[in-house]
């Protein structure tokens, strides 16, 4: 007998700093059902599941199990109710064996000889669901797929009838995805219910019975997978038909600026993150790369700017080879970079504003003379950036960690743009900025384009992509699904391309 026959979430709302992450969300799963949660990054999928798992408390709304309202204050309570969650990032101790990791999280682990006592149980589960796992191996010896199975066993052993999987396929190879799907089907047949979070349409269509589409924290679609198709799901996910905006000035593209030839880049997890991508970029051009984040955008940007090694292929700037050169060498060839994780890469938090305003440029002649930095010039330069980019800071002599995220971002953008780069690699430059600052920044990007620079723009915001770009590539799983002029009518299917089910 399953503890949960039916789980309902009713009118769940949750906001962070006044912004709705979830608003009036209703959800229902029943025994033997796989529910898909589809949406772009930041649509509120993970927040919703964290509420169910007891990590967050909802501002309003309630959770019911078998019709009875319950309160979930912590993951422990959630587990006791029969809910298990497999996070996107695994919560395993790398130097311990599989069995030790399982014993660690298992509520009935005896104090003495924990491994021996639960070993049989684990092996029995393993056989039942076809897990094929050697329980004596250390976690670091396992592939991502095997580690995920360990997480699933952990959840099942703790009596999870409802299993939440957060982007489970993002770390898996195609073969492992197939194995996962067959495990999930097996679980479904045994009466478990599963909530499957993803932004990949094919998978959702393949394994889910029903799908909820989230957009900006609200449910915008709810359908049985057999009654719907990828195209309408894609439209729901993106949320609108693409309006082609042509307010930008028509410019003829100039000489070739950047050329990327068949590059492959390995990501943090050791898998191929950029798969044989080639493109060219010309002066007076903004080239946009659209896609759900985590599909290789960061790795591509880092590879071009010299932070991440390129395993094969070539990158040339104005005909000069810059493949795997140092970030400074590449910068000196005219390539600026607004990194995706600005706080992590773009600033030294404990240093002053003016120190941060010249990060990466401090070696330039105008800021340094022999061994010394010209702090007067540096400070004047900082003041100019602050004025021009409307960074609100009470003094340039304060630590940059005192600034809000938006202001840090404006400073970084000002720093990278004010140097008139020949190529600006900008990752999500307007993410988190207010409307005014966004407009201002977009104007700056168009100015750069007009002045003969090229811009490589990574963005999840399709409006921004189509407003600014001359050409657009859609990236999915490290590959380009399409490279088209931005006013190409075929972009009406961009949702499908972003979800990996259509290639042009």
């Amino acid at each position, binding site marked *: 007998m399953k503890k949960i026959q039916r789980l309902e979430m009713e009118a769940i709302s949750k906001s962070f700093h006044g912004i709705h992450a979830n608003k009036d969300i209703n959800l229902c799963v029943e025994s033997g059902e796989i529910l898909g949660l589809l949406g772009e990054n930041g649509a509120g999928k993970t927040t919703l599941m964290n509420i169910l798992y007891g990590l967050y408390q909802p501002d309003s709304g309630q959770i019911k199990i078998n019709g009875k309202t319950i309160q979930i204050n912590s993951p422990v309570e959630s587990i006791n109710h029969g809910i298990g969650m497999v996070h996107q990032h695994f919560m395993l101790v790398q130097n311990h064996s599989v069995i030790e990791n399982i014993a660690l999280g298992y509520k009935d682990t005896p104090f003495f000889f924990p491994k021996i006592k639960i070993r049989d149980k684990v092996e029995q589960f393993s056989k039942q669901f076809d897990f094929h796992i050697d329980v004596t191996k250390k976690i670091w010896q396992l592939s991502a797929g095997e580690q995920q199975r360990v997480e699933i066993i952990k959840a099942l052993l703790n009596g999870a009838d409802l299993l939440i999987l957060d982007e489970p396929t993002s770390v898996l190879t195609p073969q492992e995805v197939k194995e996962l799907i067959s495990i999930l089907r097996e679980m479904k047949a045994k009466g478990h219910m599963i909530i499957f979070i993803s932004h990949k349409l094919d998978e959702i269509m393949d394994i889910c019975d029903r799908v909820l589409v989230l957009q900006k924290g609200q449910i915008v679609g709810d359908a049985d997978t057999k009654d719907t198709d990828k195209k309408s799901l894609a439209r729901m996910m993106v949320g609108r038909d693409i309006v082609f905006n042509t307010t930008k000035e028509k410019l003829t593209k100039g000489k070739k600026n950047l050329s990327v030839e068949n590059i492959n880049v390995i990501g943090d997890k050791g898998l191929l993150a950029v798969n044989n991508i080639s493109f060219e970029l010309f002066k007076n051009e903004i080239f946009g790369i659209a896609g759900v984040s985590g599909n290789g955008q960061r790795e591509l940007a880092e590879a071009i700017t010299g932070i991440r090694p390129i395993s094969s292929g070539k990158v040339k700037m104005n005909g000069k080879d810059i493949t795997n050169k140092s970030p*400074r060498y590449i910068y000196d060839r005219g390539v600026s970079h607004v990194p995706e994780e600005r706080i992590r890469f773009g600033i*030294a938090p404990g240093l002053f504003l003016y120190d941060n305003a010249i990060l990466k440029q*401090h070696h330039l002649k105008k800021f340094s003379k022999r061994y*010394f930095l010209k702090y007067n010039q540096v400070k004047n330069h900082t003041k100019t950036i602050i004025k021009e980019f409307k960074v609100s800071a009470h003094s340039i002599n304060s630590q940059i960690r005192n600034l809000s995220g938006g202001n840090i971002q404006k400073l970084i953008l000002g720093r990278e743009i004010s140097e008139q780069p020949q190529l600006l690699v900008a990752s999500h430059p307007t993410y988190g900025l207010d409307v005014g600052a966004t407009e201002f920044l977009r104007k700056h990007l168009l100015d750069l384009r007009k002045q003969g620079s090229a811009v490589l723009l990574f963005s999840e915001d399709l409006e921004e992509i189509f407003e600014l770009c001359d050409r657009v590539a859609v990236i999915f799983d490290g590959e380009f699904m399409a490279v088209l002029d931005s006013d190409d009518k075929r972009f009406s299917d961009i949702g499908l391309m972003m979800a990996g089910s259509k290639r042009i």
Partner: protein
Amino acid sequence: MINIKTTNRYNITTLRSFMTIIFSLLAALVVISIIFLIAGVNPIFAISEIFSGSFGSYYGIKETITKAIPLILIGSGLTLAFRAKFWNIGAEGQMLMGAIFATWTGLTFGEALPSYIIIPLIFLAGFIGGGLWGIIPAILKIKYSINEVISTLMLNYICAEFLTMLIVGPWKGKERFGFPGTNNLPDSAILGLIPGSRIHYATLILAIICAIVLAVVIYKTRFGYEARVVGENPEAGKYAGINFLKTSLILMAISGGLAGLAGVGEVAGIHHYLGYPASISSGYGFTAIIVAWLAKLNPLYAVVSGIFFAGILVGGDAIQISLGLPAATVEIVNGTLLIFLIMGDYFLNNKITLRFSYGSKG
């Protein structure tokens, strides 16, 4: 149930950081007092004895300054390394290596050369010795990702044993009548003292100059800038195209080199020959870590905090004699001070709130 919540504190005022230091020191004094009580000594008397022993008499002040010389040199060097988050725990070894290089130079060339040549020469040799010993862990860290805390610490022992091997073996001097140690340095290689004291003024002046130069290096130069960026955020350093190997090599050469200079001062100013490692380094390399920390990693403040800790060392000697406490007492005092200073930093950078809640189970 009590929930402890920590949040980063973004606005750190000068007043707040100053008060944090004061309160950390006071809290440390409370714990130190308890230790004195356990040892059966009146803590107020003991602590006042420490300070009157070091700063309360003409003799005490002279001794304090003598001991401050190596602390200022090593401590200011450490501020640079620590700013780049290079945890150099190996100043003891670097100091000894400086002493070894200086002794060899002095013994080999001292007879033939006048003071104004040989003295700069032994300082140079000491800087090179300490610097070389300092760059070994830098190479190990950057090239092979070997934790510098372990490697610098272990290199201390290697250097100390190497030195012992020299003085009982090949370098053992006839003048020592069979005891371990080298011959005395020739007179030309011995540093002058301020009359009536043990203050070798050349090293003192050098120490203060080094602290000032280092402040300029840290705050005004490209190299100092790069070191600070690497220390604050290595990822940003990588993004900014900073060469980690080069930066680490230079800063460890400087940090180790200054420790080497301190070793020169001890050999040529105090002992006049190379004896047992413990007598040369006397734990200055470790005490200097606290000096750098109390100075908030600013080399200029290291001059002040160096004098402060020298005072505690001298005062500690005083209470050993007057109260009959064991020699380890000073180390307990120093260690307690360091722990509280580091804890103070945590409370400075993070805001801690306690929340009392009564758990409700649904």
